[in-house]
């Protein structure tokens, strides 16, 4: 019966697969080929080799790659901690209105990034920002355009994202577990150490890698705020793509892109199984 009503279903999937092969596959192959195509400085002759990749892991290029990893790690760690505290405060609150408001605001802010976010913070804490001038922060050495400025700005979408990831998991913590722990003589610290954190671990770690990936890939916010005062791999690639690069080194940007894909791939390889696991947990 089923075979009669749905004679051949698979052709309906062909357009999507063909589209991805074209629109995603061709740029991906071009990126790979370019990253491994080395141009000999003197003759202009090209051949396949790993010189670009080796160069992308040296000197200034390595600095930008490590700068991005460091920024993303700090953002993810702080975002996880503060997001968890905020989510806990919201979930345990008895006011349903407050919970609804915070969760829907988180939904909006987690999707808010890029250029507009940068300008809101520049208007607030930039060199001529309202808060900066009102409190004379400029003289006391404050600058939005450095590493910690970026951390502060990235928190604006990272913390809400963590709240969204963690709120369902926190709601899954049964009050009975807490009560059982307390009646067996466990204090708050022991309860979290042995019950709370282990149950939340997949969500916490999943949120951490999600935040890391988001901060690692972010380009627009950083470009609009700092120009390129903070060494970040996305800014370095953009500089190279828009022509600010030595002759013969164009493909190093592609090698750098490939490095980024590897890091992002590792991040997703951690995230996806965790996501599956935590969604099974909370069913």
């Amino acid at each position, binding site marked *: 019966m*089923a*075979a009669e*009503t*749905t004679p051949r*279903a*698979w052709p309906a*999937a062909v*357009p*999507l*697969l063909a*589209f*991805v092969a074209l*629109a*995603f596959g*061709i*740029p991906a192959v*071009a990126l790979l080929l*370019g990253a491994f195509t080395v141009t000999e400085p003197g003759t202009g002759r090209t051949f396949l080799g790993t010189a670009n990749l080796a160069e992308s892991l040296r000197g200034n290029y390595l600095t930008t790659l490590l700068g991005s990893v460091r920024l993303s790690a700090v953002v993810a760690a702080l975002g996880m901690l503060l997001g968890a505290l905020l989510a806990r*405060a*919201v979930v345990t609150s008895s006011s349903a209105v407050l919970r609804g408001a915070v969760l*829907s605001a988180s939904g*909006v*802010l987690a*999707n808010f*990034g*890029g*250029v*507009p*976010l940068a*300008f809101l*913070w*520049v*208007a*607030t804490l930039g060199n001529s920002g*309202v*808060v900066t001038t009102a409190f004379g922060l400029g003289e006391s050495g404050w600058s939005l355009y450095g590493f910690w400025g970026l951390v502060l700005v990235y*928190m*604006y979408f990272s913390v809400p994202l963590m709240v969204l990831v963690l709120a369902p998991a926190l709601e899954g913590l049964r009050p*009975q577990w807490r*009560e*059982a722990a*307390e*009646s067996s003589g466990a204090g708050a610290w022991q309860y979290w150490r042995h019950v709370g954190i282990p149950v939340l671990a997949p969500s916490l770690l999943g949120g951490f890698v999600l935040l890391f*990936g988001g901060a690692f*890939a972010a*380009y*627009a916010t950083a*470009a*609009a705020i700092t120009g390129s005062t903070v060494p970040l791999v*996305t800014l370095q*690639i*953009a500089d190279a*793509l*828009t022509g600010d690069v030595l002759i013969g080194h164009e493909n190093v940007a592609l090698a750098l*892109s*490939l490095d980024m*894909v590897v890091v*992002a*791939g590792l991040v*997703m390889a951690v995230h996806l199984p965790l996501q599956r696991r935590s969604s099974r947990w909370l069913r």
Partner: protein
Amino acid sequence: MVAVTPVLDAPRELAPAGRRRVRVWRGLALGLAAVYFLLPLATSFWFTVHNERQGFSLAPYPRILAAEGFGTSMLLSLGLAAATIVVALGLTLPAMLAVRLGAPRLRPVLEVVCTLPLVVPPITFVSGIGTVLRSGPDLLATTPFWGTLMAIQDERFPLVLVLAYVVLALPFVYRSLDAGLRAIDVRTLVEAARGLGASWPYVLLRVLVPNLRSAITGAAFLTLALVLGEYTVAALLGYRTFPVWIVTVAGSEGQLSVAVSLLSLLIIWLLSLALSGAGAGRRRSS
């Protein structure tokens, strides 16, 4: 649960002092969060309406509409968003239905294909696209594809951006539709409709799509938000979409760019309200 109930009284006796501490702590956390998240909004608004010479003035807001480049860049972004939504849904929905109706072995393939774009940060994707657009003309100069390559880069409506945005939107569209399809029994609906003599287009448009309305709206909203906010790909390929315009205008008109930024946050907020409203309406009616 019954076993736990008798011991409930013991912890309650300890509660008042602990509960007060928890309340203070929770108030502090919420207060700090409120300051952090609301301060930039309030100060940005102040920044746009106040200046040294004129004092208070709402002038930057009406000026947005008249600003040079606002109309064209906004229309371009909205057009790209519409095209992206149509193409992404038009490609993904049939494929996902096929997986559920008769090709379950394709499911992992589809899952991988629709997750892959998450692994690729937009900036690396655009460096791949840039390479193709730069080296493509030399390789294809003698073939008919050369014309195609030129056509997709048309300044007025760069199709290459639609291609890129569909790829970037795939994970969100897939997840949204997957959640919607999980909630209905596709096979039974299709077999019932086909058994009653409905044609395939009728089954798709009058039976399946209405049942997936909130999932489709969700996918469309996420895609719209993605395209309206996307800066990296458009800026590096040199197209003047809405976010690119905001950056170019910021150099000369600081107040205007902050006003536009505030408005774009407001738009995202209204869109998400409309979306959750549509979802809630759907749940009530079903």
